[in-house]
């Protein structure tokens, strides 16, 4: 028996037209963790994009006399062994790391969702696509990266310039090599959602297949997608750092959090602030994104809304 949900007499409230997004926002605001997440994330984004002009130090400027300094007035987070200002590098690095994390996760997400939905929804594609997933899962990442950098770097550099080119390459590579788990999860969910009666109902009124996917299936697999997105961002930020230290990443004068953390690790006993801050900011980003993801997932579920 369907238990009656707490029925507030519908006639009593809401005569005004509610927009879905106001609802989502209203529910989202109720999620304390998500709210804190938004503030932290917004703080990071603002700091990273507004901070540099305020701080006013070129991250690549070198002050040879000021090497390996601890925090002081001119260098609030100290300097590194070359004489870069750590704060300036942190801020510049944040721009790159955030951009890489978000866009690579987005690519992985789109690919994973696309492949997952196709495999789950189109029966004849299921086998081939799942085998493709197996293939990607077992590919050796490093050689693959070497190959793609060899094949695409110069073309991209010519087309977009050295920095954007390598950015696109890295983002693309991370995205292309990390969609597999999302695809599997999505496929599983699609398989079960497509057996639900509201999908049959949509068929019965003659809804076209692609609309069934967009209208009925996708919205109902949002929560696993959200979770993979969160993990994806963390994964992309970390993977980027691994690429940097293998010489496959950004040019060396292009700081990123991952790289700062990696380079700084050797100096942990000399200038601890070089590692602490990138570490803290990576963790904070991941945490805040995770909580935002949780909040969004709840807010997007109308069943939890209004609670």
């Amino acid at each position, binding site marked *: *028996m369907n*238990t*009656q949900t*707490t*029925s*507030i*007499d519908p006639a009593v409230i809401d005569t005004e037209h509610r927009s879905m997004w106001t609802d989502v926002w209203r529910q989202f605001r*109720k999620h304390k963790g998500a709210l804190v997440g938004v503030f932290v994330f917004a703080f990071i984004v603002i700091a990273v994009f507004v901070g540099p002009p305020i701080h006013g130090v070129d991250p690549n400027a070198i002050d040879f006399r000021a090497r390996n300094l601890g925090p002081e007035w001119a260098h609030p987070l100290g300097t590194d062994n070359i004489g870069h200002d750590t704060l300036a590098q942190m801020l510049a690095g944040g721009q790159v790391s955030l951009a890489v994390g978000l866009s690579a996760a987005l690519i992985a997400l789109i690919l994973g969702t696309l492949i997952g939905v196709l495999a789950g929804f189109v029966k004849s594609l299921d086998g081939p696509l799942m085998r493709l997933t197996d293939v990607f899962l077992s590919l050796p990442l490093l050689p693959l990266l070497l190959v793609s950098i060899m094949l695409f770097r110069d073309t991209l550099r010519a087309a977009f310039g050295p920095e954007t080119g390598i950015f696109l390459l890295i983002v693309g590579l991370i995205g292309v090599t990390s969609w597999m788990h999302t695809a599997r999860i999505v496929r599983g969910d699609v398989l079960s959602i497509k057996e639900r009666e509201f999908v049959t109902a949509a068929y019965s009124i003659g809804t076209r297949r692609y609309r069934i996917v967009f209208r009925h299936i996708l919205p109902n697999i949002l929560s696993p997608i959200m979770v993979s997105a969160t993990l994806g961002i963390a994964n992309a930020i970390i993977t980027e750092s691994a690429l940097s230290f293998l010489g496959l990443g950004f040019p060396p004068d292009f700081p990123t959090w991952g790289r700062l953390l990696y380079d700084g690790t050797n100096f942990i006993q000399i200038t601890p602030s070089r590692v602490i801050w990138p570490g803290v900011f990576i963790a904070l980003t991941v945490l805040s994104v995770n909580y935002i993801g949780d909040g969004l997932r709840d807010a997007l579920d109308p069943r939890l809304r*209004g*609670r």
Partner: protein
Amino acid sequence: MLSNPDSDVVLSVTDVVTQFDTADGRVHAVNGVSFDVREGELLGVVGESGCGKTVTMMSLVKLLPMPPGKIVGGSALFDGQDLIQADSDALKKIRGGKIGFIFQDPMTSLNPVLTVGYQLTEALRLHKNSSKSAARKRAVELLELVGIPMAKDRLDDYPHQFSGGMRQRVMIAIALSCDPKLLIADEPTTALDVTIQAQILDLIQILRKELGMAIIWVTHDLGVVANLADRVMVMYSGFIVERADVEKLYSTPKHPYTHALLRTLPQMEGERAQRLESIEGQPPDQLLQPESCPFSPRCVYSFERCTRENPFLEFVSEGHEVACWWDLENDRPREVS
């Protein structure tokens, strides 16, 4: 207050109030329910979905999710013990041992990864300290009792290997396994179709006669109750609104809700009605503390007093109690005694 002095009362429930604390506020699910169950009696509990039938029964043995659930007050005397006050150790001894349960949905009430045999012997081994082999033997007997053929071979099967009706029979067997004094059956046949339902109703009748235990049978199907019960209790929005012997209730319902409920049913015999009667409106908002008669907004007989005062359960004739300010038989406000 109906407090039967009879010594054969198995369970005596007084003024149970249960609430849920939710993000939206407090849900008043059960608002002071009192009743007795006697030995060998089958008490039917009917009412529409959400009126608090399940919550009442779960409150008695504290199987509610707590929190958000909270039993605010009341007592339930069973075996010389107040179940509401009892600590979890005492309750553990009673649950499954002296009180058996059958739940609403046979498809999900059995653990899918444990064998039927295990689930069947669990309570036996816990309450009767039976040995493994003795418990299995008893389990076979129980399965045979509820009419599952080749019971012995089926002990090691998993629930999904049984049909819905058989699963519900397994649930019954589990509930009966320790010879409980009281069996609480919460809509045990609602999810089944007619032929299987008929099998189970039949089975219950037989078992009741054989084992002589008290049964509380919760349902919203008035037909089932008519079939089985000795006495019936009608609930609405967390209150008991009418209670009577079964014939009396069906022949002369005294509460407008019961009255309307009986008329919504299509008849299997006689002239086909032109149109089914229906009760318009929505059940009340349980977030609000009930101050007036909860049925009054939907009640065709509602008058000024109904919106002011909440009626209490009153003895109106032999074996018949009702909570209403309107005297349906005489079509006038009830005289307050």
